[in-house]
């Protein structure tokens, strides 16, 4: 049985201390599972299988419950994210303003679909339901900065910039 008070994880990964603190804050209560998954994803970036087993033990929940919740909600990721993220809003306002054209162009440029990460694992394309900036449609969130009234050319240009930077790094 895993104790919930902060102590070193056998792997020596100190990030588990942070996770343990979040679990303790919620008194290891299974009802706070979503909160704890949020915390875990915030700390580790995504939810690995081992991580879910760890959380299930700590909260005394069946693993099926933890896995079920983690896969039910769009927000939780079971795979790591790329270095760069291109979050395209696919809400109604953005759709009406031509977000699907941007989608096609960016998918073509990255050679992968939205919801996937490029083969080199560097750029993740994510579609968001609505980021709530409908007045500025079409909107995308590029590495956490919001770009409003985005054009297809601009979107492709930004992705190209990332790709060039990645190439330079590789050299």
């Amino acid at each position: 049985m895993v104790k919930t008070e902060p102590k070193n994880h056998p792997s020596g990964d100190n990030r588990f201390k942070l996770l343990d603190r979040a679990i303790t804050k919620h008194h290891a209560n299974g009802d706070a599972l979503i909160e704890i998954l949020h915390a875990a994803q915030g700390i580790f970036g995504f939810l690995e299988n081992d991580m879910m087993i760890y959380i299930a033990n700590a909260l005394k929940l069946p693993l099926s419950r933890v896995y079920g919740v983690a896969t039910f909600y769009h927000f939780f990721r079971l795979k790591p994210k790329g270095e760069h993220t291109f979050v395209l809003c696919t809400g109604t306002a953005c759709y009406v303003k031509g977000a699907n054209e941007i989608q096609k162009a960016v998918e073509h440029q990255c050679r992968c679909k939205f919801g996937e990460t490029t083969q080199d694992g560097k750029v993740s394309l994510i579609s968001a339901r609505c980021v709530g900036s409908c007045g500025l449609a079409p909107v995308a969130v590029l590495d956490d900065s919001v770009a409003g009234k985005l054009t297809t050319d601009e979107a492709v240009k930004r992705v190209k910039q990332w790709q060039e930077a990645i190439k330079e790094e590789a050299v």
Partner: protein
Amino acid sequence: MTVEDLRELAEKELARQAEFKYRILYCSSAGCVSSGCDAVKIELKKTVAELELSKKCEIIGTGCLGLCGEGPLVIVYPDMTLYQHVDAGIARRIIEEHVGQGKKLKENELDLNDPFFATQKKIVLENMGKINAESIEEYIAADGYEALAKALTEMVPEEVIGEIRKAGLRGRGGAGYPTGLKWDIVRKGVSEQKYVVCNADEGDPGAFMDRSVLEGDPHRVLEGMAIAAYAVGANQGYIYVRAEYPLAIDRLRTAIKQAERLGLLGNRILESQFNFRIDIRIGAGAFVCGEETALLRSVMGRRGRPKVRPPYPSEKGLWDKPTVINNVETYANVAPIIRDGSAWFASIGTQKSPGTKVFAIAGNVKRPGLIEVPMGIPLRKIVFDIGGGTPEGTQFKAAQAGGPSGGCIPTEHLDIPVDYESLQTVGAMMGSGGMIVIDNTSNMVEVAKFFSEFCMDESCGKCVPCRVGTKHIHIMLDKIIKGEASESDFELLKELCVMVKETSLCGLGQSAPNGVLSTIRFFEEEYRAKLKKQDGKQSQQESSVIAAKEV
């Protein structure tokens, strides 16, 4: 803190504000953050420091000023001058010229008598552009927590519910259930423990009303929830917010801390016997969680899957205890009703739907933004007077109200009054307040497919009609768009839509076909133009549609 302390605090704050000759408020809501209001804030503050004007003017971040497409917006008091498209350069000039020399910047000034502003009536959004979104003192100075004080000191819970019932407040989440009635059921429920839940899982794409309220005036929601808790006898509240709204979550956290510090939340509120705590629960991206039973399961850390009703949450909600669950905007209406009385509230709007409604208007419209209008206003006024109509060279085709669950309202129904019942007569619904304007550059079948894709992705999978039905609706629409569908496919689509609507478990499935049904109802010719003809030739209609597009 006692009620007297509260009033003293309000006076102290007003006196503090009066010391400044100018108060400069920049919009710090998500829309303007996206347009770059941070740079504006930095420049305003820097210039004030440089010119040593810090005793003369104060720089404050405020809630959404409404005209999101023209941001970043800045408003200067006391002369109420609203500036649009403010960048660092303009920000500097506002301080130098407006504050320094008393000269307005004409070229960036917005006319507040413009129909965009003049047609609106603000209750929920009354503090937007007036107070600092992150200061409880400013909220209190604007009569904040006065309604809670009145309820706790002058009214018994039954009287509070009576006021809400007399005011005729209806749920602003879309269904329009009378709020007072809901509270009354929870009040009468026999249980030691009751809960108050705020639904801030604003999932409709194209809707950002709740977000703006939470970002711009979070205390108003907390106060409304506290009054609800007092009325029904609850001591614990939850606000369920989408994870996609980090700024709103931040502001709520700050607001809850501030209210706890002043004894306006927590134990013995305003020295009374009333205790109430509020915790935040963060959603994780599931549209179905906007449905109340699914939301409650999500608050309890489960998968957000709806349950059969009855029992309704007001009888068996969180952990099977009686639970009040209302939308953000509903709670935001509570404090003004208690403060100014039910008669005042009932005098606004229509008899059956009193009050106002906040809409997020977006899409192909000149002036997208956040608006609040009295119920019963003709749709035409919203689209043309406030929204400014569609961009040059295009024509209005339809307004889509109610998100993926709602329907389209075409040109011939533009004069319909916007209230719960009237919108239903044309197959649309009030919904939570997203209003997307569609012009003649969009094809309605494609729009329907967009919504069907959304519903298909968001179906939780619990009941078969929704899980399988939405998928097939999507496949059929795709077939129609590719020109591979026949007349009998089209008939099957209609039949399937009715089946999904009538047999699904929860609101998501029951309303999922609305987008298709309403576009078929008003734009059937666009569907027919895409159907395969038996002889394989293009129909005349189709050629004319193509010809029109080429022009």
